[in-house]
Structure formats: structure tokens, C-alpha cells
């Protein structure tokens, strides 16, 4: 078996990389794939709490690299989802404890037993980011519909191409369709126009994400059907698997007043 390594990155912090990693990994596992998620944010471990596995950590990524445990010993098995695993980050070390070569070696081993290795990259463009993209077969860039996040995504796209890891694919997270309809949020079309990159997901802002994260349960594991974000995460996973899935219709009709404003604005 030769699994695929997918890295989720963004440049800017706080755009939703960790939540996306947890949900994409869980959605892939739900479709019957063997999946391991790796938290590459050494020193700022968080994927464990988002996945609800924080109480079961014994060994971490740095323990594997420094030979204190075998690979399998650091893979926490998610009891709710067969064939979903987490390799947590070390919390008391920093990014320099891992090198890009270390990441390639660990992932080459994981590829042999797993269908997918999903890596949660830290924010920034320094060592942690370099570590996260080094083993990647596919890089997914997360952005929000705001100026700073799209600007950082553009920088990341350039860096990924320079590292010959491109072309990356884009996920637009936290879209508010009613704000787009009002003209107060950059639309997905505008973002694609600016970044000139393939789109792989659009995730609407959704309260159910925070609620499920509070409980340590990726929203796709809750049954997903009631949540538009949950459906959007599942769709990203399916597109990663090569299926042609149409994008959710996130165009808000808006109130009559909003539509009248639309006429005035020439839309």
C-alpha cells in the first residue's frame, strides 16, 4: 500500500486548519479508509483536543523521531471511528525538534500501512511550515474571505510552487453567504479570480462546529446531516478521493431589502 500525504496549511493563523484537519481525516475514515492525522504544530499542540483524544496521549511525534517509542506506540486510535489515528505534537518542545527529513521518513513509514496521512501545519512560513509540507503529495491551503487571510494564502501558494509541491488546492472556510449577498464579504469567485487556484471546498460559518469542538467530536462524526459545514467537510474528503462532487449552493437569497440593495449595487 502507498498512502497519500495531504498537508493542510494557511500562512495566517486562526483560519480553521486544525478543525479542517480533524474533520477531513474523520470523513476519510468514515468512508472506510485508513487514516492518520499528524499534529505538526510542535509546542502548540491542539489537534488532540479538537479530535477529543487529549486524555490518551502517551508518546508524541518528537518521541518517534528521537527514538523513544515505535511509530505504532505514538498512534492514538480513535475508538469512535475504526482506522482513524492521531500522532500528537510534542507540547514542551519547539519546531526545531523536527526537520523536513524527519517528516519525510515518518510519512514514508506511514504510507505503507495507511491510505491517507493528513498533516495539520502550524501557521507561519518558517520551520514548522517547511516540516509540514516536506512530505506532502498534495497541499490544501485554507483561507477565510478576508483581506489578510487571502493575502497570506497567496504567499503560501507561491512558496509551495517554489518548493515544487504545487499546485495546491484551496479551501475557503467560514463563508457567510448572507454577508456575500449583501456585498459585505469577498465572494468565493472573487477569491478564485485573485488566487488563480483550484477550489476543493467551501465551508460555511456554522455554530455546530464550535458546539462539536467543545465536546471534542469532529462535526462529521455527529451524523453531519443537520450541519451544512459537516456536509461541506465530507464533500472535501470525497473530492480528495477523486469524486466529482458539486459545490453546495451557498447563495443566500437574503431579505427583500437585501435584494433591493443588490439592484442598487448592480448585482
Amino acid at each position: 500500500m502507498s498512502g497519500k500525504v495531504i498537508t493542510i496549511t494557511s500562512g495566517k493563523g486562526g483560519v480553521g486548519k486544525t478543525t479542517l484537519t480533524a474533520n477531513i481525516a474523520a470523513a476519510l475514515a468514515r468512508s472506510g479508509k485508513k487514516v492518520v492525522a499528524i499534529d505538526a504544530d510542535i509546542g502548540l499542540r491542539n489537534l488532540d483536543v479538537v479530535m477529543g483524544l487529549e486524555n490518551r496521549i502517551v508518546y508524541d511525534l518528537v518521541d518517534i523521531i528521537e527514538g523513544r517509542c515505535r511509530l505504532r506506540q505514538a498512534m492514538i486510535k480513535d475508538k469512535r471511528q475504526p482506522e482513524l489515528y492521531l500522532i500528537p505534537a510534542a507540547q514542551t518542545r519547539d519546531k526545531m525538534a523536527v526537520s523536513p527529513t524527519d517528516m519525510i521518513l515518518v510519512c514514508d513509514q506511514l504510507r505503507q500501512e495507511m491510505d491517507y496521512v493528513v498533516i495539520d501545519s502550524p501557521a507561519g512560513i518558517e520551520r514548522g511550515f517547511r516540516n509540514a509540507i516536506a512530505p506532502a503529495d498534495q497541499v490544501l491551503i485554507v483561507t477565510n474571505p478576508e483581506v489578510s487571510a487571502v493575502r497570506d494564502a497567496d504567499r503560501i501558494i507561491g512558496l509551495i510552487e517554489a518548493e515544487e509541491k504545487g499546485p495546491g488546492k484551496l479551501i475557503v472556510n467560514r463563508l457567510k453567504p448572507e454577508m456575500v449577498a449583501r456585498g459585505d464579504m469577498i465572494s468565493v469567485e472573487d477569491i478564485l479570480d485573485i488566487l488563480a487556484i483550484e477550489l476543493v471546498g467551501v465551508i460555511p460559518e456554522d455554530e455546530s462546529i464550535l458546539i462539536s469542538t467543545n465536546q471534542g467530536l469532529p462535526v462529521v462524526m455527529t451524523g453531519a446531516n443537520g450541519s451544512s459545514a459537516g456536509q461541506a467537510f465530507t464533500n472535501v474528503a470525497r473530492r480528495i478521493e477523486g469524486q466529482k462532487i458539486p459545490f453546495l449552493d451557498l447563495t443566500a437569497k437574503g431579505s427583500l431589502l437585501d435584494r433591493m440593495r443588490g439592484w442598487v449595487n448592480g448585482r
Partner: protein
Amino acid sequence: MSWLGRLLGQKEKSGTVAKQRLQMVLIHDRSEVSPGLLEQIKDDIIEVIAQRLTIDRENVEVNLTQSARESRLVAEIPLVSRNGRR
């Protein structure tokens, strides 16, 4: 913005403003040319051209433009003809 919007004295929507600001900032990010460097280049171009031709210095424009992922430096240099007509 539509003629109706302009007629009603409407302000540009913030989403449109965001897109325009992004396009401007990315032109400079991608080319690694700062607005300050662009001004210097403009002054240099004026000096070189002015040695050979009479130009309208006040209306020289040097801009970066963007198409897809390719940047281009575009200079517009109005000439002043000898008999005073442009």
C-alpha cells in the same frame, strides 16, 4: 457600481473595497516591488528619456499590472512636441 447606485450617492460595498485592496497589495507582494521603489524607477525613467526627448514630466505614470500570475511594469510617458502641441 450601477448608475442607479451612483445616482443615489451610495458608497462602495465593503466586499468590493476588500477585493480592490487585495488586488493592489498582491501586485506589490508578488513582484516584490514596493510603492517606494516604483517611485524611484519612475524618476530614473524620466531622467533617461528626458535626455533625448521633451516629456511631460508631471504626467508620467509607472504602474505594475497583473494578469493571472504574471506581473508587468507599464510606463506611460506623454511627449511634448516642439511646436507646443501634444
